[in-house]
């Protein structure tokens, strides 16, 4: 097999034109997903069954089905209903990007809420008891003690989820979006050279993953600065 380096040089800039869309998908759905996750987390730890139960069902459904299936249901399934096409959400759902962001948000929200819950459960009781002993209310305990400690505890697992979200954005190419993967697939279909194109695409994703890892490493070190031992 000959490996055509020229082809890579020609097609890399084309693929990189999709970076904007890939990052738009990652950042918008990552941000919205985090907000959703916090809502779900609060519902889960509220101690009220009518909040806890729906959140549990939601998480079960979205973690229990493949994200590709969710994307297809949202993109191809929803518009089958007249009501959806007449609704105010249609301008968003009409666009493939809107559908992809919705699917990724709903999916990552479910995963991240469980990651955050793990962080909350990991906060030692002693800290909270100390807070109560100082006269802090349950709410103050949560805001000043649980939240910061849980964030630090959840961070390594959360960075994992951001990385897998980056890779999930590639699925958007199945619903006509020209992200990096979508562009690569079109180039492959035109040049019939899957190895060169997909291998260079894989390397581009790896570079971005490396960047995300480093970024979270910096945040982790910052949040854990009080934990470092002296000497």
């Amino acid at each position, binding site marked *: 097999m000959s490996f055509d380096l020229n082809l890579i040089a020609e097609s890399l800039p084309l693929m990189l034109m999709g970076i904007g869309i890939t990052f738009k998908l990652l950042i918008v759905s990552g941000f919205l997903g985090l907000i959703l996750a916090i809502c779900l987390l609060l519902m889960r730890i509220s101690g009220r069954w009518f909040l806890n139960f729906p959140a549990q069902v939601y998480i079960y459904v979205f973690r229990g089905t493949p994200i590709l299936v969710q994307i297809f249901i949202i993109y*191809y399934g929803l*518009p089958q209903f007249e009501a959806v*096409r007449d609704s105010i959400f249609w301008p968003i759902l009409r666009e493939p990007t809107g559908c992809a962001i919705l699917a990724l948000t709903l999916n990552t929200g479910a995963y991240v809420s469980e990651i955050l819950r793990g962080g909350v459960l990991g906060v030692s009781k002693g800290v909270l008891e100390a807070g109560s002993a100082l006269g802090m209310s349950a709410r103050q305990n949560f805001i000043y003690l649980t939240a910061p400690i849980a964030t630090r505890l959840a961070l390594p697992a959360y960075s994992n989820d951001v990385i897998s979200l980056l890779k999930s954005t590639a699925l958007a190419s*199945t619903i006509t979006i020209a992200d990096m993967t979508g562009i690569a697939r*079109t180039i492959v279909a*035109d040049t*019939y050279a*899957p190895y060169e194109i997909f291998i260079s695409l894989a390397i581009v994703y790896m570079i971005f993953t490396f960047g995300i890892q480093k970024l979270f490493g910096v945040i982790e070190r910052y949040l854990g600065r009080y934990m470092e031992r002296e000497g």
Partner: protein
Amino acid sequence: MKLTMLRNLAIGLSAALTLGTAGTASAETLRVGMECTYAPFNYKTADGELAGYDVDVANGVAAIIGVELEFVCQEWDGMIPALLANKFDLIIASMSITEKRKEKIDFSGPYRFSTGQMLGPKSKEMDLFDDAGNPIPDNFNGLRVGLERATTYASWFEDVLPGADVVLYDGSEPLYLDLQNGRVDLIMTNPMKAHLKFLSKEDGAGFEFKGPVVDEEKYFGIGVGIGMRQGEDELKGRLNSALKELINSGELEGYAMKIFPFKLHKDEWGQ
């Protein structure tokens, strides 16, 4: 110790290799790649059986040249790479013979016309073609057009109507869905197929062909042929004479008449 192990391994490997080649030579089997979802040309019936014009052609040719066939279902945009990677030996999948594809693979003579036509909603008046049947590029500006990735339609649009906002799909079913859903204004596909699978059905009631059939040879080629790897001239010769036999005996016309009230080839291809 290590050496003997290596030698044993080498002996085992060469034995396996000779067995492998002996197996394929004794009963000649050709593997045929197709989409299996491109009705009425190649698709699976409700019983899971493959059927359609391409399948009939494949079986007709196989009977004449005396080989067994094994069908492999493959998505369209990976069809040529899969042939080149030896996942199968022939493409009989309504693939048009184009110069661009000929750079990578070889084709038999044509066995079906290759054309395209646009479809859009009846309710929308679209002034897309002039009286001579040529597209008016300005009127395509900003129109959202759904096409299948890596098809002759896509390269035609790219060159002839660059102002259109082209959206690329992975299959033909999603094209019809998104046309119905209003995500695209127009689609372009094979008119025979569109008539059978969409316009004649309840879902297609609100839609119609927009403009004439397009068959510019530079993009659409002389027709649809059987694809194979380059350098297999002996096989190509056998396939070509088998196709001619199918045309001259009227059998090919019979395959078309099963689906359409007209034939899909030119008799001169049998000369």
